[in-house]
């Protein structure tokens, strides 16, 4: 470690073997195309990348440390700040991990609402990906169209939970609220417009000469590499490995729903772009199936587990014992049994899982958030080598990383 003084200020010690006529450039952390606070140190030979070093940590807030010093319910809103493009998927991944530790299951209606919110978040996240990716590559108008539809989806989220970005729409043991009246009608209208919008994006991009030139054979990642580097979600399926946690290890209502898992064996950015488009279509299909399920389900929203979860408000206000339980749960927090759990879920970016180690205390002894973007960022040091400087932005966009969950 270099000893820094005022005369010799601190610089990162970068151990590049400088042979021949290579140049080191610094990309970020304040680069508009870096999708957040990514710093890349690139060694270039002419315009070709010889070595790439992703440097992260500029958005570190110590989420895992915070989890060790917060009760389980207190921590839930913090999970919003991981993947802030699709907050509900983080809330859900955390809630399902705690639920599994407690051994409780959310009631049917809560499951329907949660699955709806998860799929709506997936559409929002994919639209955001499409918009920013196209903008990075140079297609400005797609950004405007995709953000318009994302706005409608965010309005739906807002009318459900009041927030547009940090939803906290899921609770441990269920959901806090039923859908407001007329929400399903609005959702239906949104879904009916969606296919023609997706067609609009496809018309703009899929056969677009420039788009194809920029994306085809850029950011190639083979199936073996994808597995070895811990790629999940569209990054893995874009390399020809058909693994979707919703299908293979079904959670929530995904076992009952009918949907396909799109796979692409192109292994490049173009294949991944096609996957995102197909996944949006599948999400629309899933949401169509969920709408009638809401009506059929019983109105209960939170699981009945008085040891861990407060009773509904009416009971708290009328029954002494429910009030006592509520008081203990609010002041001390729930105490899950000793044990460890890892629950994977398929977030829009890939496998999002929470590892929780409980020692029977109201605070988690250790919480590890397995964020897909963290490993996709690690992959950059392999994927960027050999590509041209102009393609670096395309590749970063195509990995769809969000720095909230990379740095945590």
């Amino acid at each position, binding site marked *: 470690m270099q000893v820094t003084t005022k005369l010799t200020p601190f610089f990162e010690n970068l151990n590049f073997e400088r042979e021949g006529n290579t140049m080191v450039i610094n990309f970020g952390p304040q680069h508009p195309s870096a999708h957040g606070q990514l710093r890349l140190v690139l060694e270039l030979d002419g315009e070709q990348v010889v070595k790439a070093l992703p440097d992260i940590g500029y958005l570190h807030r110590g989420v895992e440390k915070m989890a060790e010093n917060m009760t389980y319910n207190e921590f839930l809103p913090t999970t919003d700040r991981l993947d802030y493009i699709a907050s509900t998927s983080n809330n859900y991944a955390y809630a399902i991990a705690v639920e599994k530790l407690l051994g409780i299951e959310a009631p049917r209606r809560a499951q329907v609402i949660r699955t709806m919110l998860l799929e709506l978040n997936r559409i929002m996240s994919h639209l955001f990906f499409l918009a920013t990716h196209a903008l990075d590559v140079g297609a400005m108008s797609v950004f405007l169209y995709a953000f318009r539809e994302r706005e409608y989806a965010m309005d739906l989220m807002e009318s459900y939970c009041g927030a547009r970005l940090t939803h906290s729409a899921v609770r441990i043991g269920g959901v806090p609220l039923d859908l407001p009246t007329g929400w399903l009608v609005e959702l239906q209208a949104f879904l009916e417009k969606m296919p023609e919008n997706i067609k609009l994006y496809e018309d703009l991009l899929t056969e677009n000469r420039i788009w194809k030139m920029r994306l085809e054979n850029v950011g190639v990642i083979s199936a073996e590499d994808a597995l070895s580097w811990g790629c999940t979600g569209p990054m893995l399926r874009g390399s020809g490995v058909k693994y979707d946690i919703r299908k293979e290890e079904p959670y929530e209502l995904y076992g009952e729903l009918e949907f396909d898992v799109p796979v692409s064996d192109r292994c490049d950015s173009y294949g991944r772009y096609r996957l995102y488009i197909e996944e949006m279509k599948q999400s629309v299909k899933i949401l169509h199936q969920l709408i009638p399920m809401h009506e059929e389900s019983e109105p209960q929203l939170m699981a009945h587990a008085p040891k861990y979860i407060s009773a509904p408000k009416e009971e708290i206000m009328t029954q002494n014992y429910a009030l006592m339980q509520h008081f203990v749960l609010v002041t001390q927090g729930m105490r899950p049994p000793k044990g460890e759990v890892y629950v994977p879920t398929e977030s829009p970016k890939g496998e999002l899982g929470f590892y929780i180690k409980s020692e029977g205390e109201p605070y988690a002894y250790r919480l590890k958030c397995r964020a897909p973007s963290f490993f996709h960022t*690690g992959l950059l040091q392999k994927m960027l080598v050999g590509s041209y400087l102009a393609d670096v932005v395309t590749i970063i966009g195509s990995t769809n990383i969000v720095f909230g969950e990379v740095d945590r």
Partner: protein
Amino acid sequence: MRKYTPKDTLQKKAYYTDRFWVAPRVPRDEIKEETHFADVVKTLQKYVSESYVELGQLVLHIKPKDNLAVLELLRDKCGYAMCSELSAVDYLAQSGEFEIFYQMLNLTLAKRARVVCRIKQNESIESIVPLFKMANFAEREMFDMFGIYVNNHPYLKRIIMPDDWSGHPLLKTYPLQGDEAASWYEVDKIFGKEYRDIIGPENRDPAKVDRYDTQRFSRVGYEVPFGADPSVEAEAKEIEYSKTAFVNYQKKPKQLKKKR
């Protein structure tokens, strides 16, 4: 007398725990015969000291020196082609050990297994980068957060915290609040200690507005020259709007309404 605080853990504690409270344990199931998990345990018989199924996932306890051999067998013989996560848990206060876990995934059978080993405080562990490249970042994070050295890692360096950081944040002995030196960290580093008085303590409230600060903020209608003495109350002035050809700000809102 000063209140006693344990030195081996500085984390938050429950403010009240019933004296008869005994935490239950999540059931650990035995591995049923003729299942996939039984085959895995049979393959790894030589290395595994304890094995059970916890909440649907196989847990294998091994010795830390066998980690590379076990993970290689898991990958090549049992089909666990992906390592989805690895990290550590701090048990220094209880037994002077770290617990390291490797979360494995079998994609063809959709099964998950967790390989667990424990190392002493000053021991290091072998890197699994030759088997799984994802460990490159994950082991760096483990080193950064716990200070666990990983042998034969290609680039073992802090990843999330700054390079010159001291301490490892996820240790239970890591304080939850910064001390005097931490609050002056940037000032000392960039300008030197003698500038503490000039720069002043860090403002951690991003929404703070000092209404009498004449250098960065101004009150509309109470403008003063740059650097004016803030202790003297400024006189109220009439607000002047810049004139443009398109909008007449001097017009009263009533007139604007009439126009419509």
